[in-house]
């Protein structure tokens, strides 16, 4: 499915209801969610294509805020398509990722220092003694 400029404008309007500009952060449309973002999402998740098309058809000509409110209240599956695409695209935007301090799920080496030994954390757990019920008939075996 190729989404037209009109489709993308409509998506941008819907997306801005979900993610408006605030707190120094760009809105969804400012982060190009309906442009490059949508292309990135659909490359990764082409299965979302048809669902988005349906949503846009439904939304055409309606007030975006009212449409989103109705969709959220009455059609969880369709809302779920938007709720995956819009933030999915938003958080692939490098500027957004930088602004929230998120660099992806890259590696973080394990600190070999046993932090469970800090402040004698385990002492009280050990001091309390066993908390399990032993095998009741063990002596009979």
């Amino acid at each position, binding site marked *: 499915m190729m989404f037209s400029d009109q489709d993308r404008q409509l998506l941008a309007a819907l997306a801005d209801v979900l*993610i408006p500009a*605030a707190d120094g952060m760009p809105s969804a449309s400012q982060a190009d969610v309906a442009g490059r973002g949508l292309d990135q*999402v659909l490359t990764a998740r082409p299965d979302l294509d048809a669902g988005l098309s349906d949503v846009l058809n439904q939304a055409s000509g309606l007030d975006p805020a009212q449409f989103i409110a109705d969709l959220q209240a009455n059609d969880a599956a369709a809302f779920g398509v938007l709720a995956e695409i819009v933030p999915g695209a938003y958080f692939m935007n490098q500027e957004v990722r930088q602004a929230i301090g*998120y660099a992806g799920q890259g590696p973080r080496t394990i600190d070999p220092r*046993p*932090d*469970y030994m800090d402040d004698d954390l385990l002492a009280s757990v050990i001091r309390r003694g*066993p908390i*399990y019920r032993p095998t*009741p008939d063990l002596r009979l075996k």
Partner: protein
Amino acid sequence: MADPKTTADALIIGAGPTGAVAAKRLAEAGMRVMVLEQGDWPDYSKARADHADFELTAGRDWSPNPNRRQAPADYPISDVDSDISAVLYNAVGGSTVVYAAHWQRNMPSDFRVRTLDGVGDDWPLTYEDLEPFYEQVEIDFGVSGLAGDPAFPPGKGPPLPPPPLASMGRRVAKAHNQLGWHWWPAPNAIATRPYKGLRECTQRATCMWGCVEGAKASVDRTHWPSNMELGVQLITGARVRRLEVNGRGLVTGATYVDRQGREHFQPADVTILGASGIGTPRLLLLSATSAFPNGLANSSGLVGRRLMMHPFGVVVGLFDEDLGSTHGMWGQHLHSLEFYETDASRGFVRGAKWGLQPTGGPLSMTRSYPWGDNAIWGAGFHAGIRKRLGRSAMWGIIAEDLPDEENRVVLDAELKDSDGIPAPKIVYRMSENSHRLLDFHLARAKESLEAAGAFETVIAPLIRETGWHLLGTCKMGGDPAASVVDAWGRAHDISNLYIFDGSIWPTSSGMNPTATIAALALRCADHLVHERSRQEVPV
């Protein structure tokens, strides 16, 4: 090495943890082992932890739900009459490919549920019987953890040190110390140091969606390469249609269908099922004959009955500092067994295990699970992300499920897999005991996070796709009228048919089950080796 069509000493159905552990032990004893697996090797090129689209693609390529995944290896599971959807993975490695690798031994009381709590059944073995096998599989899997946990009898610890508690873990540990509640550095089947073929974990919190690092101990990595070096023959893309039985009532082998739709017969002296708590009873029911009209090994009527799936709960806590909780082990950083043992004053019996986990990346902060009705869309979006991302931690709660014969696996009357073989249907209702148990534990877990300083907590809605632990559908016991297999996994009705997987658990415990599945498979395989000279075979 056993060639296809030549008689194997042992034929194993399923290349998950049960099949991997059993094949290793049997091959080490010199047996010719053949394994049939309907899936393929996992495709780790689809592991996207290093890519910006990780959160978007993880659920598609690594979904644990076969009905959602619909890969060529998968069979559909009808769950229209179940409160919970069953999740599993059909591949070399089985569900260890997508498990969270929480490595929990059962407690001693889990083997004596009837004696101690008057419900369910006792197992025909004890914790002490299984302990040496726990120790061995922990070495084989490269388990990380710390000896001395007072929730278990004293004994050897796993070979690798535990993961860091991390900021969230230290907060919770201090809180539990103040509350007087149990906690302990968590055991995981995740390498915290380079170990045999495993690399060191890099805490990407992507463990369930394709471990890109090769640190998680899924048996495609820990067992199958070395098993094949031992001579085990593994055939992938082999979907078993039925087990065949001769006039003496012994299983002669299995008929399977390859990916081209061609049918084959693999003969064997003994056949071992390790196809999961759903796949195993399905196959026994599919193998009905005139001599076994209700399915193989089913004179008790219990094949498929007593399905247990562990209702699962989550509580998330939000904290006013950066916990770094986009990352970590997923996996678990610490566990608590404070409320694991029965206390009748709570209004239910048995208990649950808690595991403390990170919460992942920004897209996960927007989803309806675990956040439920606490949507952040609109004006509060950015503040909501800032509040949650890296600043949240969650308890995952595994609730013990009691056996109920009405909870069961049957063959669906209409649904079939891609080879036209009847699909399984699960019928499952969560018990009142489970509801009470889970409610209690969710409330306590909320208190735990509040005590750790959470300024807000969210109890996740119960969702359907949490049937990770498929247990109990071919019960183990001493009485052939009330169980399917004996204490060594041998079918009461058919002396050369064995079941080693989670199907044979008499009760479910409240633990993640892979540690006990692996230890039990090793114990059963070990016994089979020792009794081999007395084994009745078809020819």
